[in-house]
């Protein structure tokens, strides 16, 4: 994936079924259920970010890898 465009293309592909068959049943949570909260460090400064900080806003949570 060499560009954001390619990233978006790849992400769009998975909506059509690319890797979706590999997705585990319990992660992410099913549509309509509360998404599990978590805290992880940022890659740039190590600062902790918790998903629940974003309550009150819509969030697009993107799991990806630069490879």
């Amino acid at each position, binding site marked *: 994936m*060499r560009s954001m465009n390619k990233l978006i293309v790849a992400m769009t592909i*998975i909506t059509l079924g690319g890797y979706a068959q590999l997705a*585990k049943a319990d992660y992410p949570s099913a*549509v309509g259920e509360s998404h599990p909260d978590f805290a992880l460090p940022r890659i740039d400064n190590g600062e902790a970010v918790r998903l629940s900080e974003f309550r*009150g806003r819509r*969030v697009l949570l993107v*799991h990806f890898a*630069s490879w």
Partner: protein
Amino acid sequence: MLGVTQEQHAERCRLFAQWQKLDWPILHDPINKLGVDAVPIIVEIDESGITKSINPKLEPFLAAMTETRPAGNGESAERSIKRPELTALRQNAEQLNSFDHWVELGDAIMLWEDQSQVSQAINAYRRAERLRPEDASLHFRLGTALRTRYDAYQRDGTTRAQSSYTPFSAPGTTSLGILAKRDQDFRAAVDHWQTALDLEPNQYIYRRRIQQYGPRLAKPYPFYDWIAQAQDEIAARGEAPIELSVALTGSETAHPREKFAEIAETQEEPDRSGRITRDSKGLVQAEVVVVPKQLKPGAMARVHINLQPAFDTHWNNESGPLVLWLDLPPGWETEGQLFRSNMPPAAESEERRTIDFELKLSESAQSPGMPKAYALYYVCEESRGTCLYLRKDIEIPIEVAAE
């Protein structure tokens, strides 16, 4: 937009984000604490924290996000996220001695502590392993922690010296012994990742971590071949590219390919007569990691040979490079037999040097002998001031499976 990357090395993703000008926060989950089975996965979460859709169409969402993006990269002004309290986690783990508590302690160290503490995470995971030896996610975590220690050890020359210097050695423990233990970390990491994948063969994250260090044939596409282009383009913009703390291996940049290239030139064995003095004192330690370690006829493996000067020893770069000669018995194929390692410009150095290459077991191979190699290098003993040209014979352990 909030990203989560499951990569081993965070700074490679930082470089990618810099190159692509991704301005949203990206979080690091090298141990796959979230339990993601594949990437990419996109989850749309509404204002109440409810999962609204999985892998949605992106364009409408991105348009809406642009219009409503809050200032400051989506972060609130008064943030106070507490990191886990290690002392309490350790006390809980020791008192309750449960699998979950040991894993929680290991995770907290892996995610939130400096990499110099990684041995404590490994110890915590080992305690969990005793309680539940067949847990795939634990083996993946152990592999990641061991590889982290291996990389930390490579990254900092002082770490090498400090790790191997032990004025109060336990009986039977030498500084070289400790050095050798650290140098087994990569092999142990691959073993744990393989165990994790054997237990959960559909886990894409586990599979990719092994492929990262495996042969080209096993990869659907390269891992980090974009890095050189990214560094050039970032520099052309007048920015300094994010520095990579861990050098890329050949397996991480190699393109998928099924056949070997022709050997371009005749390669002459450097010590055919075997007269170069053997490194009997172990001034340089060798670690061999084969991915995968078991092959069937017709299959390929990636071999990583890591060579590290022991405490009180350094490479003598003025005299010449390290070379490695690969000695293949019938039944094996490769692209070359003679390899040279890169050298830093300094007259002397003490970094770990890695040579990696691929081997293929012929379709028709029956009871093939094991490949061997030897390295030739110039090193100096610091205490005596003696500089030597030495040879180290290296076994390449590959298990041959029945067809």
